[in-house]
């Protein structure tokens, strides 16, 4: 178990700055995710930590020791690759044993530890199978076992679930989560899937164009996004552009009194992010709600999603499916009430 510290880490490629002066602290035993769209530099950041790329500037510390110039094979950091990178010419056992063999662990202990690791990922009976004969999900678990068995100081994941189908992705996610919680190995996890990051992580960092936009617990990032980008990336968000004066936010015809906590940044131009589930629609206009018109309705099973025209703005609204949501077909006039206490003010511009 170790903590990871990045100090003003940066990486320039010929074409672009992939990572721009990132400073970060991952605590010992923490599951930390880096979340961002493709091309934001998150994989480069991971590869810098793994030692596959050397940084253009800054330093990497593992438990306070500078490892910036330590070659990858001497870092004691294990990685689970996006395509698993299992050695196709070896059996499951040989793959998992690979890291132990390089560290000259005695054969008897290798057998014991590989056995335990394969048990942990429910693949004990496949030990002698050649890797190409495994299914995608099984390969993924071998990759996890291969990384866990060396008891790394730090475990890296590079979008490990992106090659799995949806159902398998959910169960594997649960397995990774419980394995990490059981072993307590400090983990750095890279993904573009916000649900994945939020379900697995103690903390997440949202990355954009080589820089970190926000670091926090999943709740903090979701409930109080630091930027419109973070708000949009972590689930759908309605972003209204307007200004705040005297504790009142105005955007077009919409005006609302917002909490002192939210308006801490004072007066001036501001963006406000409203989550689709913070808006309620009523077939009959209840007290305090204003009129809107349903433009589109999208049935998603558990929830139903609406596009609603409201006071000159177009809002996305999400509600648990029910007889009343079924009644709100396109063109229905509905009452719209926004829970302003759940909205967040973003002062930083896009």
């Amino acid at each position, binding site marked *: 178990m170790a903590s990871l510290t990045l100090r003003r880490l940066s990486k320039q490629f010929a074409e672009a700055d992939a990572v721009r002066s990132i400073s970060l602290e991952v605590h010992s035993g923490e599951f930390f995710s880096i979340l961002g769209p493709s091309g934001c530099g998150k994989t480069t950041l991971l590869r810098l930590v*793994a*030692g*596959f790329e050397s940084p253009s500037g800054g330093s990497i510390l593992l438990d306070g020791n500078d490892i910036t110039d330590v070659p990858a094979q001497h870092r004691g950091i294990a*990685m689970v690759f996006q395509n698993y990178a299992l050695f*196709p*010419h070896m059996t499951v056992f040989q793959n998992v044993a690979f890291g132990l063999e*390089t560290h000259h662990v005695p054969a008897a202990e290798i057998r014991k530890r590989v056995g335990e690791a394969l048990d942990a990922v429910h693949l004990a009976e496949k030990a002698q199978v050649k890797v*190409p004969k495994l299914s995608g999900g099984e390969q993924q678990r071998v990759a996890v076992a291969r*990384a866990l068995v060396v008891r790394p100081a730090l475990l890296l994941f590079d979008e490990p679930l992106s090659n799995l189908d949806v159902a398998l992705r959910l169960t594997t996610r649960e397995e990774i989560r419980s394995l990490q919680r059981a072993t307590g190995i400090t983990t750095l996890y890279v993904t573009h899937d916000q649900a994945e990051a939020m379900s697995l992580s103690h903390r997440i960092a949202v990355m954009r164009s080589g820089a970190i936009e926000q670091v926090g617990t999943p709740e903090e990032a979701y409930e109080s996004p630091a930027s419109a980008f973070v708000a949009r990336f972590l689930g759908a968000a309605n972003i209204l552009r307007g200004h705040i004066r005297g504790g009142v936010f105005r955007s077009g015809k919409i005006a609302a009194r917002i909490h002192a906590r939210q308006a801490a940044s004072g007066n001036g131009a501001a963006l406000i992010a409203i989550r689709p589930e913070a808006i309620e629609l009523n077939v009959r206009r209840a007290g305090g709600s204003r009129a809107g018109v349903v433009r589109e309705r999208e049935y998603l099973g558990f929830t139903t999603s609406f596009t609603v025209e409201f006071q000159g703005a177009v809002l996305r609204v999400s509600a648990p499916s029910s007889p009343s949501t079924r009644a709100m077909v396109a063109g229905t006039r509905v009452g719209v009430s926004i829970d302003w206490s759940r909205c967040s003010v973003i002062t930083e511009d896009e």
Partner: protein
Amino acid sequence: MTLRRIAVLAPVAVLVFVITGYVLYPLAMMCSVSLRVHGTLSVGHYLDLLDPGHTGNMEAVWNSVSVSILSVAASGAVGVFLAFVFTQLDFPLKRLLSRVAILPIALPPLVGVIAFLFVFGDSGILPRSAQWLFGLPRAPFSLNGIPAIVVVHAYSFYVYFYLFVSTALRQLDASLVEAAANLGSSHWRTFARVVLPEIRPALVGASALTFMASMASFSAPFLFAGGRRFITLQIYTTKLNGDMNLAAAQAMLLLAVSLAFFASLNASAGSRLTFGRSKGASGTRTLAVSGTARTAMVSGAVVLLCLGILPIITIVLISFAREGSWTSQILPAEYTAENYLKLFADPDVFQPFVNSVEMGMLTVGASLVVGVSGAYLVTKGALKRARGAFDLLLTLSYAIPGTVVALGMILAFNRPTLFSGFTVLVGTFWILPLAYFVREYPLVVRSTVAALESLDDSLIEAGKSFGAGTFRRFRVIILPLILPGIVSGCLLTMIAAVGEFVSSILLYAYSSRPISIEILSQLRTFNFGTASAYSVLLLLLILGCVYLASLITRRNEARVPSRA
């Protein structure tokens, strides 16, 4: 300088030394010699080449170029046809026949030429059979002169087209053709608009290789040209006449033409020599062919392949013919094992065989070391950044005609230099494997580069991530995965080396004569049986190497399953 740095730089230094000393330096020497008339700097020899009063040299260039163009057309027709038949149609014995189709690649050029001479030549088996069959006063046809050369070239080089186009057709996504059909496109339109663009790089690549090989061809003109001039023959005769400066100028001319085509080969996407790397589904059908057309095409292919095996069968037959018993008959009258017994009984007669095996092994050994480390350095190692330049340097010598390589060796190593270990190499045993090495190691480079390119980088990173150092990564991860590529490159190198003739004829001494030279001298004294026995032995040696290579690959495969 740390030990680590030395370990990284040492292979690079060796590689640079090899390329400089054995590829570039001989060429530079040749260039400098070609620019000297009676010891002074002059372009006189080049002016001689262009002299309108003595058209011999330009005639030779013209003959070589036109034969090469015809060879490309003929090889292309045969190779593309066979590629279509073998990828698009199913028929009995397809697997066996597809092996027969690549047989010419294992046939040393000289052996192929002699076999053709026996079958189709002026007093060959087929012309005489036809004469006897129809009771004609003379043979109704026979192959000699330019048509003979073109046919022999087509036989030797169609394999380029066959392999390249087969690969392209197999990689062609069948759904593209289905999509075209789905959009209402006719067969011909689909072929012209969808299939042809996909196989064009393969066609360009094979054409360039065939053209280069035909320009450099020596054995076919040597035995079939009659009085006609060809550029490779010109260089050989000029050298025999002792005019090294003019020979060098002629060689520079041939080199220029070859390099121009090498450049176009590199520019085309089909430039990778990917022998032995048939991946993907081999059963993809892209063209629906009707019953009759199918039968006609398959029959045509079978007839072609039979014509292709005929020379080999003939060589085997003649190797058992009693010397002097084959004069005016269709087939030799008497048979004996004497030709073989003689080979094994007399150590001096057996010497060429020993020489060729030794030189072959030396060539493969050197190619293995230089080729694999070069390939590794440019794809994954220290030279990755300078890849373009080194890619070119590493494969450059493949584009140099054998005659030119040999002449360069003579001019460079007829005096002690650093690169020759401060001795004179001309006239020694060592200059032959050195020339073979220079000509053939690019085959190992290419096949290893291809194997390394299909190797996923993340496997190497995974190795690093789990603590494996450079050496262990190479031994445990990379080597088992690229071994098939290395082996196929080495096999081609071995085949080329043991049957080498073009460079050898300029470089050999009696004690260092390889099999091919001995075959030729037996042929010149009309010992057809002995010449054939040597040829058969050479073929068996090559078959042995093929078997050995498949054994190595299979043993490796038992440990390394191909990726699903």
